[in-house]
Every structure is written in structure tokens, then in C-alpha cells.
């Protein structure tokens, strides 16, 4: 439970995240959307810190912001025709979409606030970084290796797909 200043920080971060997210999905200019995405991702990193997941926050910034978003901006630049486009970005599914999302949200939030989560008051035994490192190399070493292979595959696949021939 957070109270006081951390709580306020949470609300500020939450506002930032959600505001930026809304911007991401609604701006006409896709480059601006990408920038707001960066903002969102930063906000999420801040949330991670509030949740005592420091390592994850670092990873988030490094990879998401540093790599993925840059990648997206590259792609945007490469498909530059739309860089300045003033075309309407939203298609005809807006209203049905709103309805669906609203319904989903109502249902989900309704459920999760009613549920009695088994919250425990224990404190973490070690720091998250230490703990994660340990787990990754003992219990979850297989998924770790598999993920590496996945990355490799993705890499090769992307090259193959985007090859000009």
C-alpha cells in the first residue's frame, strides 16, 4: 500500500501513461504518435520503480524505448509518404470500437475490484536484480535460452522478409 507522496507519484505517472496512450492511438501524424509512445513507455518504467522492479525499469527503458521505438521511427521514416499525411487516421470502426472497449473495461474493472486478492505483506528477501539473475540462470534457464533462439529467428526472418531482390 502506498500512501502519501508515492501515491501522488503513482497518480501522476498513471495520468501521464494514460494521456500519452490516448495520444498514441488518436494522433493523425504517426510520427507524433511514436513520440507519445516513448512518453508512455517512460511512464511505465516509472511504475515499475514504484513496484520495486528496478531492473525491469532499466530493461524497459533500454530495450523498449531505446531499441523498439527507434526501430519504429526508422520504419516510419522509411515509409515516409505518410510522414506528413493529413489523412484521417481512424477508420470506420471507431464507435463500435469504443463500445467494445468500454464494455470490456467495465467488465474487467468491475470484476477485479470485487475480487479479494490474496495480498501478502512480506517484504522481498533480496533485491529484484539479484533475484531475477538467480532465477534466470537456475529455474528459468530453458526459457531464457529459447528466447535467445527466438530473437535469432526473428532477426533472420526480418532480414529475409525485408530483403530486396
Amino acid at each position, binding site marked *: 500500500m502506498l500512501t502519501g507522496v508515492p501515491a501522488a507519484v503513482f497518480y501522476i505517472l498513471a495520468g501521464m501513461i494514460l494521456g500519452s496512450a490516448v495520444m498514441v492511438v488518436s494522433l493523425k501524424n504517426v510520427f507524433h504518435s511514436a513520440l507519445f509512445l516513448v512518453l508512455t513507455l517512460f511512464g511505465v518504467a516509472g511504475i515499475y520503480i514504484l513496484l520495486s522492479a528496478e531492473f525491469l525499469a532499466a530493461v524497459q527503458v533500454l530495450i523498449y524505448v531505446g531499441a523498439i521505438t527507434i526501430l519504429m521511427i526508422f520504419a516510419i521514416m522509411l515509409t515516409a509518404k505518410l510522414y506528413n499525411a493529413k489523412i484521417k*487516421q481512424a477508420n470506420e470502426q471507431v464507435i463500435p470500437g469504443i463500445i*467494445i472497449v468500454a464494455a470490456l473495461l467495465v467488465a474487467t474493472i468491475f470484476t477485479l475490484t470485487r475480487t479479494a*486478492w490474496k495480498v501478502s505483506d512480506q517484504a522481498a528477501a533480496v533485491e529484484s536484480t539479484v533475484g531475477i539473475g538467480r532465477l534466470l540462470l537456475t529455474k528459468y534457464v530453458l526459457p531464457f535460452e529459447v528466447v535467445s533462439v527466438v530473437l535469432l529467428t526473428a532477426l533472420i526472418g526480418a532480414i529475409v522478409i525485408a530483403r530486396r531482390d
Partner: protein
Amino acid sequence: MVGLSHYLTLSAILFGIGIFGVLTRRNAIGILMSIELMFNAVNINFVAFSKFVTPSEFVGQIFAIFVITIAAAEATVGLAIVLLIYRNFKGINVDNVNIMKW
């Protein structure tokens, strides 16, 4: 008092916004960005649960790491495809990519 449910609510709303983006964006990259939002929402969920329900274990965070990794892979391949689409359709307006129909 910010508790677990607040984080979960935040995650849910973010997820909803992500869905909205997937359904409505015309630009293919815009759709990919919306999917990233959804990933992030899920990650927040994982970590929140990890912190509040099993503080001594970091399984949730490990999952979140994996999610990030996979998201990266997916973004790579997705953007490669977008490039292809751009080449073939002379634009990335997904409205035009409708040949998988009757």
C-alpha cells in the same frame, strides 16, 4: 491508498486503449504501436501481482522480461512486413490490404 487494484485498473485501461488503437488505426505502424501498449499493460499486471501477491519470488518480473524480449522480436518482424507492404501497395494504409477475402 494505492493498492493492487489501482495498478490492475491502470493496466486494464491501458489495455483497453491498446485495443482501441488496434481496431481503429489506419496506419500499420500505428497498429503495431497499439500492440506495444497492450504489451506494456500486461507487463504492469505481471509485476503488480508479483509485488503484491508473491513478494519473495520474482516470477512476475521474469515473465515481464520475457514479454519485452518477445515484443522486440515481434516488432522486428512486424516492421519487416510493413516494409514489404509498403513496397507492394505503395503505402501502408491497411484499408488497402484487403485481398484476403472472397
